[in-house]
């Protein structure tokens, strides 16, 4: 019975250059919240188990405990210094099925422990592929790019899974993913085949989680947790890939890290340098990244070399020939709202436009239209932000 065989939520932690990738703590946060309500609802004592691979991991296990992990199982080995699919898949699968570890984690000796109940991965260049191969190895199901999770008992009638009968699946993880249109949520379930002719158990119920969706919990240095070292079984067969070099590409612009983006266009023309400086000020106070419209990337105005090479580049272009972004707050300064630009920012949650021309197309694409020249409006906005934050602190 499932009850005996599958326990706990394992979270596969990601590192890059020995530092935690933000999605790792985000997953941990959501795992913590889910397991807390799970334990309350079902009167159980299941755990959040962080799985960590790497080399010279130092204080990372401790950080994970502060961020919600009950246990941290780590494998520290030179061959694990960077992610390579084969070896990581093998080691994680070993850990997931290791009965000795399960014995330490559970409050009693669960003789029948097979695999975790649930498993989380990050939906990025590492996690998406790693989760796929791990789940083949663990012979279970995976849903990718998830942005909402719930655990419920589900009543279901399904031709194959239940042979047409209405059955209840307890403690099922509902995994929500936004579909390709962006308007719909598809809910995926990983379910045992209870149909006698094709009976099979499918655990862990697993998913890869979209970065930037969930919040980590407030780190609590007083949280208690246990760190378990795991000695991986490393087979030469799994070390076929040799990493020859790793080179960081200076992507100076990473819009996805920011909740706000301030973009400017040809409206800066009357005083390009001064206006860019104003925009920089505003962006700094909003903790926003700076984007540009396509014409700006062609350097139509002469400004000093620093500003030109920093801002008038294609990496900052928002639009069909550049980036499509969807920040919480988008501020379009001196941008008329050409279709190509709008296509790049129309999914933003809240759009503010600063423009002296009320007839410009951007007005139809924004929530707030501040009429005025940027030279006049931005200093006022800046002053007001400073005033309000002083008030907040007081």
């Amino acid at each position, binding site marked *: 019975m499932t009850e005996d065989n599958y326990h706990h939520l394992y979270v596969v932690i990601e590192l890059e250059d020995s530092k935690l990738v933000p999605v790792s703590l985000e997953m941990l946060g959501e795992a913590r919240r889910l397991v807390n309500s799970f334990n309350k609802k079902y009167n159980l004592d299941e755990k959040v188990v962080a799985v960590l691979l790497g080399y010279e991991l130092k204080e990372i296990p401790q950080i994970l405990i502060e961020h919600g992990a009950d246990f941290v199982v780590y494998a520290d080995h030179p061959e694990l210094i960077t992610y390579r699919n084969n070896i990581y898949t093998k080691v994680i699968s070993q850990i997931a099925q290791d009965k000795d570890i399960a014995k330490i984690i559970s409050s009693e000796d669960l003789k029948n422990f097979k695999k975790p109940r649930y498993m989380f991965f990050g939906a990025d260049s590492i996690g998406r592929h790693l989760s796929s191969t791990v789940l083949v190895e663990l012979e279970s199901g995976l849903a990718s790019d998830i942005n909402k999770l719930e655990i419920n008992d589900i009543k279901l009638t399904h031709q194959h899974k239940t042979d047409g009968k209405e059955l209840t699946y307890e403690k099922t993880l509902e995994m929500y993913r936004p579909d390709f249109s962006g*308007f719909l949520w598809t809910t995926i379930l990983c379910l045992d085949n209870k149909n006698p002719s094709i009976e099979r158990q499918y655990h862990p119920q697993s998913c890869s989680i979209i970065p930037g969706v969930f919040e980590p919990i407030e780190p609590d240095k007083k949280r208690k947790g246990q760190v378990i070292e795991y000695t991986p079984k490393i087979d030469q067969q799994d070390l076929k890939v040799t990493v020859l070099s790793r080179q960081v590409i200076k992507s100076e612009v990473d819009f996805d890290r920011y909740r706000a983006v301030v973009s400017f266009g040809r409206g800066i023309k009357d005083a390009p340098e001064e206006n860019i400086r104003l925009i920089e000020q505003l962006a700094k106070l909003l903790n926003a990244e700076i984007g540009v419209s396509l014409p700006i990337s062609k350097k139509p105005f002469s400004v000093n070399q620093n500003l030109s090479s920093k801002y008038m580049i294609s990496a900052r272009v928002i639009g069909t020939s550049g980036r499509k972004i969807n920040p919480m707050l988008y501020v379009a300064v001196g941008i008329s709202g050409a279709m190509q630009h709008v296509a790049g920012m129309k999914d933003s949650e809240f759009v503010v436009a600063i423009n002296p021309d009320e007839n410009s197309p951007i007005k139809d694409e924004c929530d707030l239209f501040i009429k005025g020249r940027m030279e006049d409006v931005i200093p006022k906005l800046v002053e007001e932000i400073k005033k309000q934050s002083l008030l907040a602190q007081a």
Partner: protein
Amino acid sequence: MEKYDVVIIGGGSAGLAALKQLSNLGKQAVLLEGGNKIGSKNVSGGILYSKKPKKGHVHNVEDIYGDIFLREAPLERKITKYILHSTSKDKVYSMDLTVAHEYESNFGYSVLMSKLNAWFADQAAESAQKFGGGIISGVHVSTIEWDEQKNKTIVRTDELEEFEVKAIIAADGVNSEVAQISGARKKFLPSQLYQGVKVVVKLPEDVINERFNLGTKEGVAHLFAGDVTLNHIGGGFLYTNLDTLSVGAVYHFDSLLANPVEPYTLVDAMLKNPMISEFIKDEVPSRGKIDKSLPQEEQLRIRFAITKLIKSWYELRESYFSQSKRDELVKNGKYQSADELKEKLDSIHEQLTKKYGVGFVTDYVEAEYSAKLIPDGKRCRMLKPYYKNILFVGDAAGRGIFVGPRIEGLNVGIDDAARAANSIARAIDKNNFSSNYLGEYYSSSIEESPYTKDMKQIDKDYLKIFLDATKEVPKDIISTRYGTILKLISSDTIRSVAVKFANILGYERLLPMVESVDTYVKVPIEIAERLGKKVSKTYEPNIPSISDRVAKLKFNDDSNSHIKVLDPQSEFMKKLVILCPTQCYSLENDQVLLQHEGCVECGTCSQETDWNHPRGEKGIVYQYG
């Protein structure tokens, strides 16, 4: 380093003809084209001619490609009528110039370059591959280097490793970069150039047949002078293609500089002319506004549904109004009969009107806007069209024919290309690529071409035909305006003496008189006023704005800018703010700024800019050409 015998730079019809001819002669050649595929950067008026001059001989397109050309090439319509209209407001006076069009001509077919050059490319590539050559697209040549000591010519591009060649054919058009990087000649001056601008208008095949009174695959060329030119030297044209019309205008660049008008305004003047708007009209679905109170995704769903229906409607309609397409659909079993096609068409019409509230109005359908510079061979042909071991052909050598209503470029380029190919084959056989053996030989061959003669002097027989066609024109209109010589020429009796005399005077002195506002504007206006028939306009064409036109064009944006303004305050550049066909320039604080999102690489601004083609694959991608 890789080595090849010949490199042809530029995959327009001239370059492709050179490749085919070299293959015909069993020689290896590689053609480099900058666009992402052949045809993506070509524009033609256009009509492709095959000629049989009374004296001398030219290499025609069918000579180079063989019988398969007339059988299989995607030619639009065979032009069997050629009419010159003089316009003034809603009055038009028409003169049948078919005889002039047929002068020394085997045929003239209307063409769309994107399709036709793709066909030329297939033919040429297949032949070239047999000799170790072929066509490579998406490559932009950056430098050519001569190592005199080792007798090597090295070609460098933005995309490929450098390679060695023995001879080069420069077929890269009026804005030839090969000419600039080699220093072979200066850029052409505005006084030597014409700016052509055109739109391709969609119209179902059967509708064209009926409206223009044509048989299957027959075509007509309409030319226009008069008020439709907005006082510029040059004229407009409307050619019938299979299921589209090419409508445009060609004006002397100097005249545009003297009186700057936006190129799109010039083409709009054509479209608005009553006769032309009646020519282009069709039944067009007119999308209304979607109810904004509906949820976002419902609005989107409706929009997608309408777009899909309209797309089907156009596709079906194009098939229904075309004998060949109708038959093919029935043959394929897609539809049982032509009636079933019509039923489907009507049902879509009904869905659009009843379900989605889309109205159908009389309007016209514009498919593509394009522009190009054309060199006037009389004024700028390269006297010695070679430099070291580079042979220049076609527009790159400044060899366009402009004689009154006669504008020819495609056939000239093809003839030049054959001569260049022949000259190089000869050089390969003797392994001698020196100026004396190769360049001079080619140069003499070009000199002998009947096309070159047309660039040097007036053909009196052509002149006679032209004047005969215009004999209804009241003499007084002409005589009040033109000098003695022209009065003499219009007199039957002493014409041939007068022509000889005129040729002694030379084009230089004659041209300003002939190519003038009088000839292209004032006289035709007067003719129209006096003798013209009234044409009623039954609707007002809804003309797209320039930004709509540019938005419809396809570009592979190059993040590197390929044009640099040299002096942002020059008078010439200020005029370019108006004269750039796609409004790439703007005037801010007395400085001319460039943001070339819509650059169609016509070269209008090349005079005072550091002008280059974009890198390989980048830039404009024409669908019709």
